[in-house]
């Protein structure tokens, strides 16, 4: 019964979405007030029904209803309750339902927080989101019904893929989807602005918080995915340039460009067409990512069940949404003025340069991701290649290095017009200090690559240049330093934090890439291996049983200067239902570095192959991402968003051409 309720709720949500995607939009074009007013109640209704559908599916999982195909394929009666909840979005169907839930959640949020928007604008925004929702609800109902029944019911389920049985996997998809789908708000604002023929600073001000929010979620989502891979895949890597990872990284790069470009459009009225194109691209890449992951056109470690019929559906959907949006852009963009003027040396041009570099980087990731497919298609299925980390690293570092360098210059430069000698005076000490330290550290550490020097320089450069920008910022305020700092708006602090996050991130990536050590050794009971000043002693394995798996649980004692400091328990698990073997690494996390031990294969009764890693500063990679996301959240909490007076809104509306 419950699954049928969920199914019905989805159908009702679809009907509401169809109305939402049409009537308010027509109303806005023709000036029919009543039709425009429909958009908010329709969004609320859609959210309600999608939420009911989602809860019905979650209930089916929690109650072990194996008469539902989705539950029978992705859960098991032995699976712990929290993973049964997570299994709701562990399957293809469930994750698409999660996607729709996120979309309706964003719609509801727009409908609540954007009441001060002009009626036409709100109606158009919600209507565009409604259209996107129609596509995804149809996709669910036609090709990926999460409530499909299984007759006769299965006695027990096939269990959730053991790779997904990890706390990281419980939160990774919702975060990532919040980010992906969040860009639909920026997209809807862009389309609404193009439709209404009004592309101005007001539009940028409305889109900004939504874009920043989506960007924060996406940052956190990618971070958790990376952390999950590090914990769960058992070989200590944190980024693999896998097509599915790239699919989330491309919208992030474009989203980062969009966040900055929106700032310029709001403050200076410049880059209008560019910003609107970025907003379209960010969401288009989110959709493309979904297509790549869900259609199976690319191979990937994520290896989800794939189906060409679904692929075709998403492809048609992509053609309609992205194609339509880009066509609209092509028609309307010529009518939009270029906006504020600026000199070659100015904050605008630094931000523009950064934007271009980010887009080129996203383009090169797209190229690397799709190149195997393109080559395959051109050769009629005869040429199969794969593009791996060497390509991405070779392309990415040269593109990102100047971008990161400009990150230090941009916040110090003046809007509209700056001069190079003035910038040099401000930044020369920051430049000299970072350069000297970046040269001295490898000397002291006994050598290092050019990559190490470059990475250290860039991290220190951001740190030093950011400090300069803080000093410059508070120079013209009065009072004690602390008071002057406290006076600054949170949006500005958010930028500072996010930029420092990039510095922390680069430091982590550089140091772990240079100084990590790895040993793959055969260890009998009592054998030791030394690494990074620690001695690892293998004390054998014992049998252990978990709720739905059996495991060989190893004991590795870590000694420092002959004293026992730590005991690690890596596991080799075999899951009961699927028979899949999983390596569960034991990781001791520290600010200065991680000790990472995972069990390889048993060689005989008491001997195992054991992998031991020392990963200095690896945590900084994720700490940097957390700082970036936190910077975004801080910017969101700025009082201008909380106290956005409706009066100022009305003024803004009155001054801009309708």
């Amino acid at each position, binding site marked *: 019964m419950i699954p049928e309720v969920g199914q019905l709720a989805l159908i009702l949500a679809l009907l509401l979405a169809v109305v939402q995607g049409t009537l308010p939009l027509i109303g806005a074009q023709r000036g029919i007030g009543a039709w425009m007013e429909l958009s908010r109640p329709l969004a609320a209704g859609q959210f309600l029904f999608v939420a009911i559908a989602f809860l019905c599916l979650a209930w089916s999982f929690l109650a072990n209803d194996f008469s539902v195909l989705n539950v029978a394929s992705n859960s098991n009666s032995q699976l712990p309750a929290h993973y049964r909840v997570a299994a709701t979005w562990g399957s293809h169907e469930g994750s698409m339902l999660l996607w729709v839930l996120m979309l309706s959640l964003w719609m509801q949020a727009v409908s609540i927080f954007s009441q001060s928007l002009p009626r036409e604008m709100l109606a158009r925004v919600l209507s565009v989101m409604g259209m996107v929702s129609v596509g995804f609800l149809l996709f669910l109902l036609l090709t990926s019904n999460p409530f499909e029944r299984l007759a006769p019911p299965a006695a027990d389920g096939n269990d959730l893929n053991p790779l997904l049985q990890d706390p990281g996997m419980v939160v990774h998809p919702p975060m990532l989807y919040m980010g992906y789908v969040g860009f639909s708000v920026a997209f809807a604002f862009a389309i609404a602005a193009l439709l209404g023929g009004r592309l101005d600073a007001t539009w940028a001000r409305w889109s900004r918080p939504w874009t920043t929010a989506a960007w924060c979620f996406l940052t956190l989502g990618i971070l958790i995915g990376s952390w999950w891979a590090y914990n769960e895949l058992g070989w200590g890597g944190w980024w693999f340039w896998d097509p599915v990872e790239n699919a989330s990284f491309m919208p992030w790069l474009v989203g980062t460009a969009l966040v900055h470009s929106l700032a310029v459009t709001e403050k200076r009225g410049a880059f209008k067409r560019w910003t609107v194109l970025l907003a379209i691209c960010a969401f288009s890449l989110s959709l493309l990512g979904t297509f790549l992951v869900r259609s199976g056109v690319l191979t990937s470690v994520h290896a989800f069940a794939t189906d060409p019929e679904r692929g*075709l559906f998403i492809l048609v959907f992509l053609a309609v949404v992205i194609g339509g949006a880009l066509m609209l852009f092509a028609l309307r963009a010529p009518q939009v003025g270029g906006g504020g003027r600026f000199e070659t040396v100015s904050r605008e041009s630094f931000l523009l340069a950064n934007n271009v570099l980010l887009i080129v980087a996203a383009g090169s990731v797209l190229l690397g991701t*799709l190149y195997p497919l393109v080559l395959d298609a051109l050769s009629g299925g005869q040429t199969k290649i794969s593009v791996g980390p060497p390509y991405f690293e070779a392309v990415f570092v040269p593109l990102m290095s100047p971008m990161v360098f400009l990150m230090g210059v941009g916040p110090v430069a003046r809007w509209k017009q700056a001069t190079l000698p003035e910038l040099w005076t401000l930044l020369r000490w920051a430049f000299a200090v970072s350069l000297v330290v970046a040269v001295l550290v490898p000397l002291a550490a006994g050598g290092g690559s050019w990559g190490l020097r470059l990475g250290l320089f860039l991290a220190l450069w951001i740190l030093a240049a950011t400090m300069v920008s803080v000093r410059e910022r508070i120079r013209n305020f009065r009072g004690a330093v602390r008071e002057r700092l406290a006076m600054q708006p949170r949006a500005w602090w958010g930028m500072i934090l996010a930029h420092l996050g990039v510095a922390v991130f680069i430091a982590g990536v550089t140091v772990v890439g240079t100084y990590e050590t790895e040993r793959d050794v055969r260890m009998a009971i009592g054998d030791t291996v030394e690494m990074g000043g620690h001695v690892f002693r293998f004390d054998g394995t014992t049998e252990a049983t978990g709720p739905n798996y059996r495991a060989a649980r190893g004991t590795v004692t870590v000694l420092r200067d002959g004293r026992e400091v730590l005991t690690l328990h890596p596991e080799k698990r075999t899951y009961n239902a699927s028979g899949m073997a999983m390596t569960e690494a034991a990781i001791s996390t520290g600010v200065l570095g991680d000790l990472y031990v995972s069990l390889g*294969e048993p060689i005989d009764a008491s001997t195992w192959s054991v992998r031991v890693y020392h990963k200095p500063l690896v945590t900084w990679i994720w700490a940097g991402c957390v700082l970036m996301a936190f910077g975004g959240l801080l910017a969101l909490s700025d009082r201008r968003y909380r106290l956005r007076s409706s009066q100022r809104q009305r003024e803004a509306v009155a001054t801009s051409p309708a």
Partner: protein
Amino acid sequence: MNRFLLPFGIFLVLLGFLFVGLKLNPREVPSPLIGKPVPEFTLPQLHEPAQAFSPQSMRGRVWLLNVWASWCVSCRDEHPLLVEFARSNPVAIIGLNYKDKPDDARAWLAQLGNPYALSVSDRDGRVGIDFGVYGVPETFVIDKQGIIRHKQIGAVTADALREKILPLIRELEQG
């Protein structure tokens, strides 16, 4: 010409490739070796290095060539299946021990069981190149005339064995 049409144009090209890509299976890697005679080689045997092996000696028999190495993780996954196969089938499996140390290889077989009629040592991987090996394990099915009829990339699975390899062997044995 409206320059703002450019993004739309790029998107159309991308769409075209995605459409074609949808019909291709990225997992299916064609081997140019199918239907070709097995590459000639002479290599020392793993257990008796003084003796050489060459595929010519297998003429008139259907046989399998399995590329393996003691350092290869997936080889461990398929190994029990090969052992079981060797126990229940008269078809010989020849092991091509790829880029491995003979001592390690012998120890590995001693521990996990030896399904191979014999293994040969391809220490520098030269013969592997002739076979187009790019991932270990790989398994070739070779007919009585010495023609390669099938190539299994990656570990042999129970499904692949039951649905593809065994029926093919039965067919080839009759021919």
